[in-house]
């Protein structure tokens, strides 16, 4: 079965096209219409919750569950956004989430590329073992280590602090792996000739290696930012102070206290999604690339 790929790779000598071609064309036409319909179905399933979220955020509570369904709100209830925004300190929560996500992203960009560069381009004792150790951290998710990690943060007196939210996630085993794989492709000659020219090691990294890694960095950056913006379990564990709440934490608490004010809940949901939507629109390629490369092991 596997040989077929090899078989078909060698072009056949004869072609017997004409007899089949009309039938085939008709079949293909039907096929592409079917494909289009299937894709449209998938689009609907993917997008409708978004539309419903936006529509509901602008509907008045009296029309919230009205039948027939009111897709286009009438009257439009802009008030829900104002009320929700002021119901709790949401500007603060946005700020917190922004600080945490940006810091984690910058940290990963720097540390993952430094570590990746080290593992890809330097020879030293224990390199292979260190690489495997770093990779193996991918098997230690937060869901497994949350209890002792919390105890460590407690001992450091980092509960309810930005450093407690940020520092444990400044670098990631997968990110290191990703940067290493990318840097393996950078020619050694380039680095060596810079050395002969007398450039310092750090300058070589900063001015020659890093600019060449831009595609990998953008993908890693977007991927990391998305994960950091999404982070829920960790703030839930170490943040009890209102002033340090991140947005996901605040949204979930908002739901438990304003459970039936659906217009306001949907308004906050829209606002909380907005940064991701913007990121997706402006960095769409990198966004998708960031996901695609997670399938790039080996």
């Amino acid at each position, binding site marked *: 079965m596997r040989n077929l790929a090899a078989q078909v790779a060698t072009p056949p000598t004869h072609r017997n096209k004409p007899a089949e071609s009309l039938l085939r064309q008709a079949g293909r036409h039907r096929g592409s219409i079917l494909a289009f319909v299937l894709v449209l179905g998938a689009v609907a399933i993917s997008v409708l*919750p978004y539309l419903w979220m936006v529509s509901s955020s602008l509907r008045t509570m009296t029309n919230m569950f009205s039948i027939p369904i009111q897709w286009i709100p009438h009257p439009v209830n802009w008030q829900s956004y104002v009320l929700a925004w002021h119901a709790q300190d949401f500007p603060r929560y946005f700020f917190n989430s922004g600080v945490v996500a940006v810091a984690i992203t910058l940290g990963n960009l720097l540390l993952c590329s430094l570590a990746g560069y080290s593992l890809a381009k330097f020879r030293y004792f224990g390199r292979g073992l260190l690489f495997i150790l770093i990779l193996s951290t991918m098997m230690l998710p937060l869901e497994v280590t949350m209890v002792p990690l919390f105890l460590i943060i407690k001992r450091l007196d980092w509960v309810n602090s930005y450093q407690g939210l940020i520092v444990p996630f400044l670098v990631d085993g997968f990110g290191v792996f990703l940067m290493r794989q990318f840097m393996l492709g950078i020619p050694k000659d380039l680095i060596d000739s810079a050395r002969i020219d007398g450039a310092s090691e750090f300058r070589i990294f900063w001015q020659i290696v890093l600019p060449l890694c831009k595609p990998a960095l953008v993908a890693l950056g977007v991927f990391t930012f998305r994960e950091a913006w999404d982070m829920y379990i960790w703030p839930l564990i170490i943040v009890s102070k209102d002033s340090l709440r991140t947005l996901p934490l605040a949204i979930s608490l908002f739901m438990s206290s304003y459970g039936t004010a659906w217009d306001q809940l949907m308004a906050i949901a829209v606002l909380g999604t907005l940064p991701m939507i913007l990121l997706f629109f402006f960095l769409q390629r990198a966004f998708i690339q960031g996901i695609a490369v997670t399938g790039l092991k080996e």
Partner: protein
Amino acid sequence: MSSAVHAEPMMLKRRLHMGTAAKQAAFGYAILLPTLAILFIFRFLPMLEAFVIAFSKFDLIHPAHFVGFANFVDLVRDPLFRNSARISLIYVVFSVLPVWPLSLGLAVLFNRSLFLKNVLRSAVFMPVVMPAVVMAVVWTFMYQQDGVINTALGWFGIDPIPWLRSSSTALPAVILIGIWRATPYYMVIFLAGLQAIPTEYYEAAEIDGASRWSMFRDITLPLLKPTTLLVMVMTVIVAMKVFAVPMIMTGGGPSDSTRVLPLFIYQTAFEFFDMGRAAAMSVFLFVAVMLFSVAQIRIFTQAED
């Protein structure tokens, strides 16, 4: 004499070279150090400590004391834990199995020429863009008794389903969201895998008169094997870690029907302050995560020959 004259610059050169090699190695270590420090303190140390705590009684207030295997013995006997492990298993199986064919199917559809392809692909990708917590809030709203999903079901004459309020439908409701979120994610990975397959194979097969199905079976699937394996492992591991959605939507209820393992670990540790038992569960989850990835890779490599 003359050999000494020759040897001197040679040695000098070698010493110089050794010097730079050592310097370079030092730089290599130095730039790896921050990563090693962070990963050691915040990944390995906790894992090691998890094993220690798992053998202790510890409530955060009184000092921990060693209790041997008591936590593990209690766990095995505890119907709540067994239930939680069962819920996690059901969640993993039913949230993962549909994702494989769905994401591969979508990827195949998007790998052909299609009207408005790029726009449609971005649209399909949207569930990945939505933050997990927002997703939980929006779907909770849609799952309400008089919510939009029940209204839509009504069009087909289906009676309203109590979704999150009934112990028989809450888990399927949570699973459905997992599928909604995961499918476009893995579609992207499959698509990358598909695009790596040289088109010549298909062109040649077409000339040979191969049907679309046989091309898919005999070219696409075999060449996509590494991607498929990876998607299988990733989906299972991600599903084992599910937390935010059940935590926010149901808190584990009704009557424990959505209390997946990570949720139970969290509640045992931070609501009941039984750190020892929570750590013992963590060890269990850790072993499960490892077993699954190893087992799946095994099964797959055996199927190859």
